[in-house]
């Protein structure tokens, strides 16, 4: 009898395909439950008790956020520090902060931010990444963007720019006016501040640490 090899047998490959597809899907579903538990948003008491969450609660806007090297994990992580005023207040309640973040996240979608910028590195590459925009030196006290708007705080400068982007010539590629209201701008800045507090496993690397020294310019 001529023996047929299993390797050229359709049924063997059909069963293998079914096994691998099924098992990989089950693993993915299991991993999804595990991950979703870890990326669920924290709350105000986590922040007050110093519980580290990958995605902190909305009241993180009441605190100062920095991006520092973690020796154990060997990359930078967001660090939530002391209280910091956000539009003149550092006592936003859970409800107020949640509402502000909700407005900002809705705004980020309805204004189509993602089709020019990247958020957490995803989106378009026509404008800067917004993942850690809140921590960007350009928007800080000595930064060019804050100076340009004539405002005295980062959040006011960002809100002013978002409302009238085409009045501020930042680059030949300008941001268009998207009809963002004062309230929406406040929400968007809260959304950006919250996003900068998300633990992105060290992305982007060396953010804001290195300035200048570019060859060929």
């Amino acid at each position, binding site marked *: 009898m001529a023996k047929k090899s299993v390797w050229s*047998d*359709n049924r063997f*490959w*059909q069963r*293998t*395909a079914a096994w*691998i597809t099924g098992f*990989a*899907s089950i693993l*993915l579903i299991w991993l999804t439950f595990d*991950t*979703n538990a870890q*990326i*669920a948003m924290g709350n105000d008491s986590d922040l007050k008790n110093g519980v580290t969450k*990958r*995605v902190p609660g*909305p009241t993180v806007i009441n605190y100062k956020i920095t991006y520092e090297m973690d020796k154990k994990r060997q990359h930078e992580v967001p660090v939530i520090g002391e209280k910091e005023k956000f539009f003149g207040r550092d006592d936003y309640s859970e409800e107020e902060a*949640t509402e502000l973040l909700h407005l900002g*996240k*809705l*705004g*980020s*979608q*309805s*204004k*189509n931010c993602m*089709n*020019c910028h990247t958020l*957490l*590195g*995803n*989106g*378009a*590459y*026509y404008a*800067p990444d917004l993942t850690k*925009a809140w921590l*960007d030196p350009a928007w800080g006290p000595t930064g*060019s963007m804050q100076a340009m708007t004539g405002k005295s705080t980062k959040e006011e400068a960002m809100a002013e720019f978002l409302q009238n982007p*085409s009045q501020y010539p930042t680059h030949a*590629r300008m941001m268009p006016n998207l*009809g*963002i*209201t004062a309230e929406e701008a406040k929400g968007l800045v809260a*959304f950006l501040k919250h996003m900068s507090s*998300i*633990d*992105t*496993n060290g*992305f*982007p*690397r*060396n*953010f*804001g640490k*290195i*300035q200048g020294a*570019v060859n*060929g*310019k």
Partner: protein
Amino acid sequence: MANSYLTSESKKLATWYFTVAATLFGAQLLFGLVAAIQYVIPGFLFEILDFSVARMLHINALVVWMVFAMFGAVYWLLPDETGIETVGIEVGKLLFWIFTAAVTVVVLVYLFIQVGPADATSIWFIHEGREYIEAPRWADIGITVVALGFVANLFLTGMKGKRSGIVTVLMADMIAFAGLYLTGMFYTDNISVDQFWWWWVIHLWVEATWEVYVGSIAAYGLITMIGAHRQVVEMWLWIEVTMLFGSGILGLGHHYFWIGTPEYWWEIGALFSALEPLPLVAMFIHVLYDWGKMQGEESAKGLDRSVITNKPAFTWFVLNAFGNFLGAGIWGFFHTLPQVNLYTHGTQFTSAHGHLAFFGAYATILIGMMYIAVQGKNGIKVLNNSTSTIFATSMIVGGVVGMTVALTVAGYSDVIISRAQMGATWAGYFDAQATTWLTQGMVWRLIMGVVTFVGFFFLAKDLLTIGKSNIHVR
């Protein structure tokens, strides 16, 4: 449909789907061109048709024309594979009109309303602002209904008629394809959760279910165009499914490196996605091997003629085999490992990969299916290349490869200067944008985009007229 040789209603419906798909392909290229011009001349259509709107139209037209062509291709091959007329074809036709009308409304709203206030009405009626799946909520629901109707037709036909290996794979694949869309339909304030599920749709479409779909279509094409043996073709198909789903499903992890998800995804994403090119190599070998084998059998009989019964379509199928491997495989592998992706994530490098991968893996084979439909509709035994075919193919392929190379070069600046050297700040971003590599890269991308666009007109002309030409064997 005068002068049509088609007797199958399913195939007639397929030609409708292909017509809309080709039109939307043109729209995709047009808005891509607008966006490409804006990179070179930033003031172009500023506050009239901004980059965000042009790009949204560019990538949405892309996704939608491919879905249209994918539905069309299934309606085309079903009667051949199952031996019966598609069940529920009248419902299928109705769904086609609903789908087309919905897409038209969505495009007009994108074009003329563009942005709305930061509330739920924008999400429901304008767009959801989530790259690739921007369609507003009402359209999401409509698309789900249409997709479920399509899957129902496929299942009912597959269960009633002869169920080949190809149809079996398509049935399993298309239900996953439709089901996955549901995971991208809800709203959340948590951007990490948002992007987690968003990738379920995007990745599990283009790096799993769509790839398996392409495997099935390639199998059908090999059987119909060069007379490859079904048993061999279907064995390869099962091997491809094994490797595509084996690497592609958990390969999803390469999108979970930096969006807030745990560090263990570095490992899962790295190795599973590193294996993703393997099935694409297999598909490439498979197509060329079968071609050589069938031609060899013909030569052994002493017959000096080509085994290919549809030259333009087969060209596109071979381009698919190679383009899938090059665009999705090589260009994807370039930046799939976390140590590389830390710097390439969200740069023009990604854009280079996106262009060649979508084109190589999907556009090519779907254009091939359009030529198969032209052949069938005109009752042609052997469809030969016309001059337009040659111009269309070389200009579109040359244009897309040119754009990819230009974007890759631009990507070097983005990666090295903006990310590695300057730590990804706004200042770093704009420094990278000002470099010669990036600015010249964008000019070359525009030039190559124009080449592609001109090639599209040759393609459109060819698809409309080649069937009437007398260069074919009837």
